[in-house]
């Protein structure tokens, strides 16, 4: 028992440097963002007035609205494609390994390397219509991230018990039915994981948007991240912090719901 405690203390001491570094560089700044939301009010204004003014701001509202709308499109398209790809890999297991290796590659390729190609392909310039720009950004997002999401789903498929699948087939289950009614419910955890992966990368889509359209995308693609980046340039601490804290809360909300769903499943299987 004593030996175990000593080992535990030693491990904690070993982990002290990364823990302190992580807290300092990641957690403290996020905490400060929330603090500034309440303390960095512009001079001569009350907190309520300042918040009211921000909430009334056209760009702030558009940023959040577009973030949600474009998010639905990205996640919907991304997840459907990932699901389709994983189904294709299940049907052709002999091709699955090279397929995974190819599909993970876009995640690693720097965005800049393909952003120029996408700009040329969609003829993106200052006069481009927003639908074209949205299509370009959606294609770039799907190309970069759906392969990895499909690989996560496929990795779950190969661990499914053959007996269950065989039994379903003997009961007259067709290929589609087998996939949606038997396979998918059995890999619910990994479905959640791949959705989380797609969501996490969606919240980081500013990088792709910046490389395609610069600081000012079409109004319909102006996300809350653009609002933050543009107000950061003006060093407007309060506006940036309020937007950042709202986005952090939104992230927490999404991931909290996902975590609850996954937890509920675990309790049920017990």
């Amino acid at each position: 028992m004593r030996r175990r405690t000593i080992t535990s203390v030693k491990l904690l001491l070993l982990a002290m440097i990364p823990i302190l570094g992580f807290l300092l560089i990641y957690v403290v700044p996020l905490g400060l963002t929330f603090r500034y939301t309440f303390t960095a009010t512009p001079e001569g204004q009350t907190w309520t007035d300042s918040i009211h003014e921000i909430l009334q701001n056209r760009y702030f509202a558009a940023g959040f609205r577009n973030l949600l709308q474009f998010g639905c499109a990205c996640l919907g398209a991304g997840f459907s494609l990932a699901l389709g790809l994983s189904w294709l890999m299940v049907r052709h297991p002999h091709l699955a390994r090279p397929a995974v290796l190819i599909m993970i590659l876009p995640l690693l390729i720097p965005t800049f390397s393909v952003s120029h190609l996408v700009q040329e392909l969609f003829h993106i310039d200052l006069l481009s219509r927003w639908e074209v720009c949205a299509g370009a950004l959606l294609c770039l997002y799907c190309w970069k991230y759906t392969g990895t999401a499909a690989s996560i789903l496929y990795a779950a498929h190969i661990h499914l018990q053959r007996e269950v699948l065989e039994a379903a087939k003997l009961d007259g289950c067709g290929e589609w039915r087998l996939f949606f009614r038997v396979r998918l419910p059995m890999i619910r955890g990994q479905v959640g994981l791949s959705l989380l992966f797609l969501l996490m990368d969606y919240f980081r889509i500013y990088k792709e948007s910046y490389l395609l359209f610069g600081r000012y995308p079409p109004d319909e693609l102006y996300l809350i991240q653009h609002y933050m980046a543009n107000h950061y340039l003006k060093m407007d601490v309060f506006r940036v912090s309020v937007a950042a804290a709202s986005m952090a809360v939104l992230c927490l909300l999404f991931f909290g719901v996902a975590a609850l769903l996954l937890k509920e499943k675990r309790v049920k299987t017990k």
Partner: protein
Amino acid sequence: MKRRKVYFPSLLLLSAALMLFLLPILAVLFFSIVKMQDGKLLVSVEEYRIMLQDEWLMRHFANSGIISIGTMMVQLPLSLCLALFLSRGRGKARVIVIGLLILMLLMPFQTYMLPLFQLYKWLGLYDTHVGLILYGGLSSLGALLLTFFIRSIPEEQWEAASMETSSILRITWKVILPQIIPALVILLLLSFAEAWNLVEPAIILLDHDELRPVSVSLNDFHEVSWAGAALYAMPVIVLYIGMLLIVRGRKGDGWAIDIFD
């Protein structure tokens, strides 16, 4: 012998999808050396020549190299130390740290960029490569990935080894490391790719133009856009193929996908 049934339409669809994943990379490589002139296709490496002779651009490539290799060097040992504690340590602190790691993995950079900028100024890390290396090296992905892999090693092996020696470093070297080589390879690859592709932190945390990585500066270099894009992707592709060969070599019969098994 039972023959496997082949579904041709879906096979065709999968092949087409895989081509779509590969096509952008191949197209960038193709356009970097093939140019259209007077309605004719010409093979030319002129863009590469201009780029390789451009001292300013090469300096930015070197900056990216310094930041990426530095991030790999910092992230590997720190993630391993943290992962050992998270997978083999005890106490509630572990749960809190894991929760914070997951939380920060999900948060976009914009949610904490302004306080981080102020903190870096205060610590003297602003406008330095060390600042960017620490930012990448301390990110939570590495620790979470290694924790996941170390947890899959049976605890009995750790217990048996700790009977023979009390040195954690020795146990890690003899028992843990040989079993997590694929995870370390993946971590190195992800860490390099992430740092090589750094955009927002480089814009916010660096001021002087000569310190900026190529991920930010290539955007302003329109003369060699195709060759620039191709050359910029090259290190990641080479590293990816190299890492696959390492993992395949170790596994004997398998590919990197075996890490999922």
